[in-house]
């Protein structure tokens, strides 16, 4: 039994387990479909749950139940043995340490999506229909394939610090030295460090914004653009008065999607500073409270908080989409 459960250090054993898992799964699905297909005149219920049952069961046990459990735990003490009411939430909203975390999170959610969307939009507009469009877009798009851990390492190297007088190895400090300044330890001082960590996230997400917005820029009917041109609109006026209003629904989707991703992202801050130097955000604090401080209650409250912040963003998103569908 243990052989099936844990592979230990042997790579062959791991690969074998992987194959076994896939085969087991295929067999299981095969049995379900075989049973569904068996009766001559099956009821729709039977077939419907044959197809959807496995997924629904997993979602119920693996998503709905744990989420409810976490909500309950957020009202319990640090080992989830005693009911403590709103204590965890009160602590989150009063203690200086957590206020910094909340402030950083607010900064992230407000700034990162806006900048990423703005850069993606400007870039999509600039390279649209140019000769190098495919290559130019590919360059900005590529970071999307990279893990946030990898991206953080790439940027940490850009921010690398060597004392003055020694050769700089970080690109940013080298630029400062070339311009005659003193090299800086960028990741140590707040709030600059939070913005510099955000750069990593923006660097990844701008490609996403660019792709979606580029597609909707291309969907603007030619006659609208042509009519505006005949009216003498050009350059910046075209961008501001024609492009932006035409792609408004896509802009909302992109902004809200990135905002939601921002809230859940913890890899970047963890890799860059591990939350030191006042850079922590809710998603990382959740992890630290649970797995480093063993504060189950606080960590649950932070997770619930994440969820609560996401909800208005989503409601806004859905509403805007309804609106734009009505217009169509």
């Amino acid at each position, binding site marked *: 039994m243990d052989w099936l459960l844990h592979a230990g250090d042997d790579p062959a054993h791991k690969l074998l387990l992987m194959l076994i898992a896939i085969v087991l799964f295929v067999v299981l699905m095969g049995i379900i479909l075989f049973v569904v297909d068996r009766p001559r005149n099956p009821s729709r*219920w039977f077939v419907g749950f044959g197809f959807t049952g496995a997924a629904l069961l*997993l979602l119920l046990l693996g998503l709905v139940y744990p989420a409810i459990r976490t909500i309950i735990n957020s009202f319990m003490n640090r080992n989830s043995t005693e009911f403590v009411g709103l204590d965890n939430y009160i602590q989150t909203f009063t203690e200086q340490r957590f206020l910094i975390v909340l402030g950083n999170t607010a900064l992230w959610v407000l700034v990162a999506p806006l900048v990423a969307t703005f850069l993606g939009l400007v870039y999509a507009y600039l390279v649209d229909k140019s000769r190098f469009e495919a290559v130019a877009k590919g360059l900005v798009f590529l*970071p999307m394939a990279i893990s946030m851990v990898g991206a953080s390492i790439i940027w940490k190297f850009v921010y690398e610090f060597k004392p003055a007088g020694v050769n700089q190895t970080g690109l940013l400090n080298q630029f400062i030295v070339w311009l005659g300044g003193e090299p800086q330890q960028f990741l140590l001082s707040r709030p600059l460090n939070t913005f510099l960590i955000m750069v990593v996230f923006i660097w990844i997400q701008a490609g996403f914004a660019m792709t979606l917005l580029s597609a909707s820029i291309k969907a603007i009917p030619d006659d609208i653009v042509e009519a505006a041109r005949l009216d003498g609109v050009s350059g910046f006026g075209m961008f501001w008065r024609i492009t932006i209003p035409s792609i408004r629904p896509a802009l909302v989707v992109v902004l809200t999607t990135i905002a939601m991703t921002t809230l859940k992202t913890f890899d970047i801050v963890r890799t860059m500073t591990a939350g030191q130097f006042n850079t922590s955000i809710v998603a990382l604090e959740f992890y630290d409270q649970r797995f480093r401080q063993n504060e189950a209650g606080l960590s649950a409250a932070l997770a619930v908080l994440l969820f609560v912040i996401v909800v208005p963003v989503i409601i806004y998103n859905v509403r805007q989409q309804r609106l734009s569908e009505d217009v169509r």
Partner: protein
Amino acid sequence: MSTVEAATPAPEVPRRTSSLNNRARKARKALSNPWASTLAVVIAILWTLPTVGLLITSFRPELDIRQSGWWTVFGSAFAGEGVFSLKNYETALFDGSTNLAVFFVNSFVVTLPAVFIPITLALLAAYGFAWVDFKGADFLFIAVFALQIVPIQITLVPLLSAYVDLGINGSFWTIWLSHSIFALPLAIFLLHNFMKEIPRSLIEAARMDGAGHVQVFFRVVLPLLTPALAAFAIFQFLWVWNDLLVALVMGDLKTFPLTVRVAELAGSRGGDWHVLSAGAFISMVVPLIVFLSLQRYFVRGLLAGSVKG
């Protein structure tokens, strides 16, 4: 657009060329503003330079990395002094203290089932919601759709406790299971959207011919859905391969994938850029290859799933 033009009959050829000219003029116009093109080039360089810097660094000797910036290699290469080697990669992969080769295997073992299982489950579920037409299908589908907004952070800890209670924690099984669960809402939603695009008449015709739902699923729906499957498979592949949170929470030293190990190195050996740079690229190479070769499908999936939560 271009297909419409290509289909226009012969007499209209002059008009077609003029519209081509028109488009060429527009194309020139788009980047004719020197400020606009400068801005575009600056953004492109800013987006590329950091990666190029670390890539070059990963091939430089340890001492050089400590003593000079990567941009100096162009000068020294010109003077015939530059030394490049694969030594950093060798160290990162096989040195006892880093051992990334082992974690590479883990990444692979984690990813394959964590892509295959949720896609299969979601395919079946999406078909059930889209075409079986059972009572409650709409309600259940909306419920699944709504589950997209649940951040995985809120589910992780109780899920882990459940695994501990069952005695299966710290194995690959829990990681596969967790990734499969977390992928389902988006996967079902996306594949359902693609599935709804199949004409109803096609499904009904097959049903009329006496095909059961299982046959319709395999013979009619599945072949038509290959591009959508590719799109979601890339999504899920990138998500799982690049994931840190689930791997960290659900796994242990025997199952950690590359991301966990590389992140750990960034913390414990933050100054050892020869190992870090090579390690970062070892963790990136597979997703980059997948991404570059299947970018088309990825973009399509992105555009279809942009309502994602």
